């Protein structure tokens, strides 16, 4: 039973077709990756799915309900969270406060009780902080909880974004290039984290350029080229698909894939 199902999604900007007829579905606990050369429409597809762009055609359904037309802050309520390709960290806040913001929907308080500093606000703050700290431990950032987020290294910020997204307890987690710009060790950590998130029952949708990572942890892969779906299947079938090799992976990519699968 698929949790997230995307069908026939399409959008064009000023006559340029960015995404055209893309559909896929993801089940709980599955890692579903979207790959494709630069400009293939991967991030646009993410922005369509997460309500940042409104699709001109097609549908996005989460647990059977359509998400089309909902503003981004309402999508979280339905169980969808994401990270961003270019980091969207709250740089003026501490590491733990970043994750605490991710708990926003779980927090029970009103603007009025907040400005009066009622006792239950302090209680709520403690609950939120505890939950955020547990998430920081999970992504290995607990030691930096009270550091300014701006002072963390790049790889740590990537994991911080994941922790913040997880704070909303999403059913579907969309990760836009979580390992981009990370070194081998940082990539390894993110790799293990994604596998663990999926194992806990969350559906993970992943955009990633690191083929080694994609081939290793994906259950299924969708290949986009020029906004259209080129192929879909398991890492093995994708790696062996001549059309994919020609369009995207090239010699280098398939060698990488071979190595990853040993």
């Amino acid at each position, binding site marked *: 039973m698929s949790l997230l199902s995307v069908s026939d999604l399409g959008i064009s900007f000023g006559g340029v077709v960015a995404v055209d007829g893309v559909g896929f579905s993801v089940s709980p606990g599955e890692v579903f990756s979207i790959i494709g050369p630069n400009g293939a429409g991967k991030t646009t597809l993410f922005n369509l799915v*997460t309500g*940042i762009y409104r699709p001109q055609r097609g549908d996005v359904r989460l647990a059977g309900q359509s998400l089309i037309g909902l*503003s*981004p*802050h309402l999508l*979280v*309520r339905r169980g969808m*969270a*994401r990270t*961003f390709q270019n980091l*969207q*960290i*709250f*740089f*003026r*806040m501490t590491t733990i*406060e*970043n994750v*605490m*913001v*991710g708990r*926003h*929907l779980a*927090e029970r*308080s*009103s*603007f009025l009780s*907040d*400005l*009066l*500093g009622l006792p239950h*606000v302090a209680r*709520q*703050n403690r609950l*939120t902080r505890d939950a955020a700290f547990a998430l920081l431990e999970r992504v290995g950032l607990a030691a930096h909880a009270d550091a300014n987020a701006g002072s963390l290294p790049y790889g740590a910020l990537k994991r911080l974004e994941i922790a*913040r*997204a997880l*704070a*909303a307890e999403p059913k579907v987690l969309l990760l836009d290039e979580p390992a981009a710009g990370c070194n081998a060790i940082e990539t390894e950590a993110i790799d293990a984290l994604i596998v663990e998130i999926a194992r806990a029952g969350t559906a993970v949708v992943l955009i990633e350029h690191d083929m080694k990572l994609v081939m290793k942890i994906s259950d299924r892969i969708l290949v986009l080229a020029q906004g259209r779906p080129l192929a879909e299947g398991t890492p093995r079938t994708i790696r062996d698909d001549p059309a994919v090799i020609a369009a995207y992976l090239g010699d280098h990519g398939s060698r990488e894939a071979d190595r990853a699968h040993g």
Partner: protein
Amino acid sequence: MLKSALRSRWATLAVLALMIAIVPLIAPSAFYLRVAALVWIFALAALGLTILMGYAGQVSLGHAGFLGIGAYGVAIGPTHLGLSPLLSLILAAALSGVIAYVVGRPILRLKGYYLAIATLGFGLILALIFQSESAVTGGPDGMAVARLTVFGWRIAGAMQWYWVSAGVLLLGAWIALNIADSPSGRALRALHDSEVAAAGAGVDVAAKKLAAFVAAAIYAAIAGGLLACMNGLITPDAASFMHSVEFVAMVIIGGLGSVLGAVVGAAFLIVLPQALTSLQEYEQAVLGLLIMVFMIALPMGIVPSLRNWLTERLA
């Protein structure tokens, strides 16, 4: 331990209370108390901007307009409607909030420079209304304001106004500090850095911005009402564009987002011109120069820079 104590809201309130307690002990005459009361009142208005600009990152160049609503509210209520000054103050603050709510909805969709210009336009319209509706507002000459009476106590004299304005400022600071460290405050500070990520975390960005805008307008209106009552007179100048710019300067010089910063910034821009009057025609130039020097030397603002310096010393 000391580090976290320096950050806590009680430390901020204690420092503010200490400042308030010391001034009457060292002030040589009632004139100084009056200047100090002005500082507390303008600091209250600046605190509103701290919530809107400092926390949420939304610029307003029309803040003095809301100050004008409060000031003219306490003038018009007793004169034309026969209301008590205190009730007029409360109603004016509420009205200011309602106007901010109505105007804020379309305006806050704009960002950065565009928001600044839209709030500027709004402030200019208000200033124009105060200036030209002579039948109600007294026109450019302004109007007299009845003395403020609270439960039979008629507030008069520099000393009484000093304590009243200081008390209201402490209350305002307490509220602003409460917001900072609450779910709403985190949402505001988050959308300051990234609206898309804040929305991605479930923050209703438009609603939170509007709440900050309304809160700022109420702060300004209460400050305006107190200002008018203390002076016993209000002129359209209070709502002028120059005052809006001054409020922005106060929160930036003091330290954007810092509650104590808003107070220090207000003190800077109110006390310095008084202290520089002996320079006569050079006063404005020296004031401008001092603002530049402070911004270059302490780009984060006075209070955050001092706090960093202190925590480094203690670490």
